[in-house]
């Protein structure tokens, strides 16, 4: 527990991602099993204790302190766990604190009464930092800026593995992740995902520049429309059918109607779209579905969705990812025959493009179609590779003047919106002295619906890390897609660019911050 409280405090004050990563790596290297796994689970919110809620902490605090003094203190500190940790009587003698695993395992088995007694007993022998860490752990509100992705990245870095290898087996693992560490430290084989409906990392494309487009030998590429929906993955196996967002979140409950034909097992990569295959509806319609965590029959009927399939990753026992795209596509075309009747799946069309001129014509065509975001060019020989490998897939966007940016700062609006955080400063990545860093490139305060605004406001309130007058700095984790009219050079902005008339196009709750755009991508749009 002592080293865990040190880790928590280190992470809390770590000034950036790299610094957080180094704290996590050290923890993984120095901590024995099962403590390190429990710690990791606690950090990423995968560990909760049903019987330990704020109410229990409040009761413990009330029993240990004067109610009026506690109320005044809580008012000042603003955090229940921290107030309780600080106000708790200092132990006459510090006992060596129990191991993290002992705490977790005891709390998992305890009922409410037992949990209260356990916690109160531990608090009585800990110093203030350990008390704080214990209460944060027990109530499940660590909030030290460690996303699941960052935790997995720390495992990958600590054991010198590719993050994709970790991502792929993550859904098979359960805290305290013994199977993971056994494999990483050579005591057992890699956990096997066969027969399990788990998320496999998606393959992503690089933006295609004008010059690069002219160099491509179009006959070596499969060209498809890039649809303006939500990239998802559908997995069906022995243990069920699941739909995942591009970052691997399970969104099955929101789209229960998206299922493969009965009996088929495998994994498909595709675009979730609103409407029907022959009548695609706007992104706004899809957004209404994406905003809902669950969908009943009425919502499914009123606002239908379907999956336009791009690729095949797995079918039955066969892992198609090692095979070239041409083979995967051929197999998909065979399969697609069985999809037609139910209307929930269809196959993305392959466009006939043999020359750059033909590509130009298609680009002109999709400029007038709001449902298409652009085009995808995929090397026919390429295997399906996790992440964003160079030189395999290219994307060209119809409206180049959009960028995925990370929300960095927020400020309250004016008039009707004065109670909500509605003015945002967004940033793009660039290489800094200490690894990738965000630099502000735009301020935007329009383009979102009232519902989205309320969700953004809530996000800001829960993620404030710094205050500068009226400006709130937030945890750098939420991506928004901005649309804008043009990009100009600007010496007045730290980033060296200014976006004209930036506005929100979509809030990308599904997209990890590290996949937001880089400054050079935006600089490339100057003068367009």
């Amino acid at each position: 527990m002592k080293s865990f409280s040190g880790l928590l405090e280190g992470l809390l004050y770590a000034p950036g991602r790299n610094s957080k990563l180094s704290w996590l790596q050290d923890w993984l290297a120095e901590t024995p099993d099962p403590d390190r796994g429990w710690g990791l689970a606690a950090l990423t919110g995968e560990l909760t204790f049903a019987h330990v809620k704020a109410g229990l902490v409040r009761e413990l605090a009330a029993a240990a302190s004067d109610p009026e003094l506690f109320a005044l203190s809580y008012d000042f500190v603003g955090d229940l766990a921290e107030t309780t940790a600080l106000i708790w009587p200092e132990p006459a003698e510090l006992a060596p604190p129990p191991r993290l695993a002992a705490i977790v395992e005891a709390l998992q088995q305890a009922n409410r009464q037992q949990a209260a007694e356990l916690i109160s007993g531990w608090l009585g022998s800990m110093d203030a930092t350990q008390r704080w860490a214990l209460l944060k752990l027990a109530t499940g509100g660590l909030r030290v800026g460690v996303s699941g992705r960052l935790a997995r990245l720390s495992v990958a870095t600590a054991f010198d593995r590719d993050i994709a290898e970790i991502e792929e087996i993550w859904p098979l693992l359960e805290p305290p992740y013994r199977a993971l560490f056994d494999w990483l430290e050579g005591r057992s084989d890699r956990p096997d995902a066969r027969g399990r409906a788990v998320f496999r990392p998606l393959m992503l494309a690089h933006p295609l520049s004008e010059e690069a487009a002219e160099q491509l030998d179009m006959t070596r590429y499969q060209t498809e429309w890039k649809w303006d929906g939500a990239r998802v993955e559908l997995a069906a196996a022995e243990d069920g059918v699941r739909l995942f967002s591009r970052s691997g979140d399970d969104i099955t409950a929101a789209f229960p109607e998206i299922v493969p034909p009965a009996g088929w097992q495998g994994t498909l990569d595709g675009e979730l779209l609103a409407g029907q295959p022959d009548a695609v509806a706007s992104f706004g319609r899809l957004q209404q579905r994406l905003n809902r965590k669950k969908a009943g029959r009425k919502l499914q009927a009123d606002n239908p969705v379907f999956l336009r399939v791009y690729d095949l990753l797995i079918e039955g026992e066969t892992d198609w990812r090692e095979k070239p795209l041409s083979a995967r596509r051929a197999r998909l075309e065979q399969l697609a025959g069985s999809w037609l009747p139910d209307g929930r799946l269809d196959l993305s069309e392959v466009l006939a493009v043999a020359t750059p001129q033909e590509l130009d014509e298609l680009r002109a065509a999709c400029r007038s179609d709001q449902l298409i975001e652009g085009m995808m060019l995929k090397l026919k020989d390429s295997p399906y590779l996790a992440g964003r490998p160079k030189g395999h897939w290219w994307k060209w966007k119809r409206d180049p003047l959009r960028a995925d940016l990370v929300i960095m700062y927020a400020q309250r609006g004016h008039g009707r919106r004065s109670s909500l955080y509605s003015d945002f400063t967004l940033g793009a990545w660039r290489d800094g002295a200490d690894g990738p860093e965000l630099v502000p490139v735009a301020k935007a305060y329009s383009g979102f619906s009232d519902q989205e605004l309320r969700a953004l406001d809530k996000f800001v309130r829960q993620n404030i890390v710094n205050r500068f007058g009226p400006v709130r700095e937030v945890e750098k984790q939420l991506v928004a897609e901005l649309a804008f009219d043009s990009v100009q050079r600007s010496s007045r902005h730290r980033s060296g660019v200014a976006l004209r008339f930036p506005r929100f196009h979509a809030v990308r709750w599904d997209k990890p911050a590290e996949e937001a755009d880089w400054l050079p991508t935006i600089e490339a749009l100057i003068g367009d």
Partner: protein
Amino acid sequence: MDSSWLRPAAAGLEILPARAFIDPLRPVDLAIITHAHADHARPGHKQVIATAQTLAIMAARLGPDFAETKTVLDYGESLMLGDLRLGMAPAGHILGSAQIIMDYNDTRIIAAGDYKRAADPTCQPFQPVPCDIFITEATFGLPVFRQPDPLAEIARLLALRARFQGRAILVAAYALGKAQRLIALLRQAGWDETIYLHGAMLGPCRIYQEFGVDLGDLQPVTTDRKSLPADQLAGQFVLAPPSALGSRWARRLPDPVSCMASGWMQVRARARQSGIECPLVISDHADWPDLLATLDEVRPRQVWVTHGREDALLHACKQRGLDARALRLIGYEEDSA
């Protein structure tokens, strides 16, 4: 007991029979100064009564002619202002800080000013003096404020240096009092190498040294607009005022680890908002247990609270059967906490 001769006024605490003010906020004819922090020791008074150390620091800060008459009143001495006897006792806050002891009409009132009870090698420890009315601050007047042993915090600072090899350890601290205390604590913990200073620290350190406080070898980071080479500062302690954190000046240091020494660092949300990497809970103000312990030792018949979080302290006084009231003086900042 007669307390009618001392009252809170717009300029500060007014001593009616002496026509004087304690730590006045605006220029007055006669000012009695508890200690040299800028919010307590302001310019423009005709006559100032304070300890020799306080007068020396004021002269360095405000210029040698900061008052027409400067009267030294050291710890344990007293002087008469009409029928009022004025005395001084150490407050333990910073070098020269004093409690103001006033005897008039068979009543003793003590204005303690800013004070602390924790160990500080750079100034005389607080001396409890029995009195009828004790006027206390309440900067950390909440039970959540329980400061750890300052040497344990220094041990954390030394551990940090070992963890972040090759980086400068930049410690932000109030330039007067806190900085010298940190240096002395580092020396006490066995750190005898050169400690590097921001320009704002040089003057106060010199005064401390002139008064015989041993701070060891100190060196400015910047002389004649030239900074020391980065490799010389790697792994070294550099002290700077809080305003220097994140500044252009700080960026010249080799990948500095930003630390801050303040009692506010106890509250994590506050520490986090200040954007530092390592908070050190080291304060020059009494924490909650020390506020209460002081009241128990001084045993006043009445407690007046000047500024800070007085509600909780008033509540605790009531529980102890102590008559207490809040003066709610404004204008005394808490930067130096």
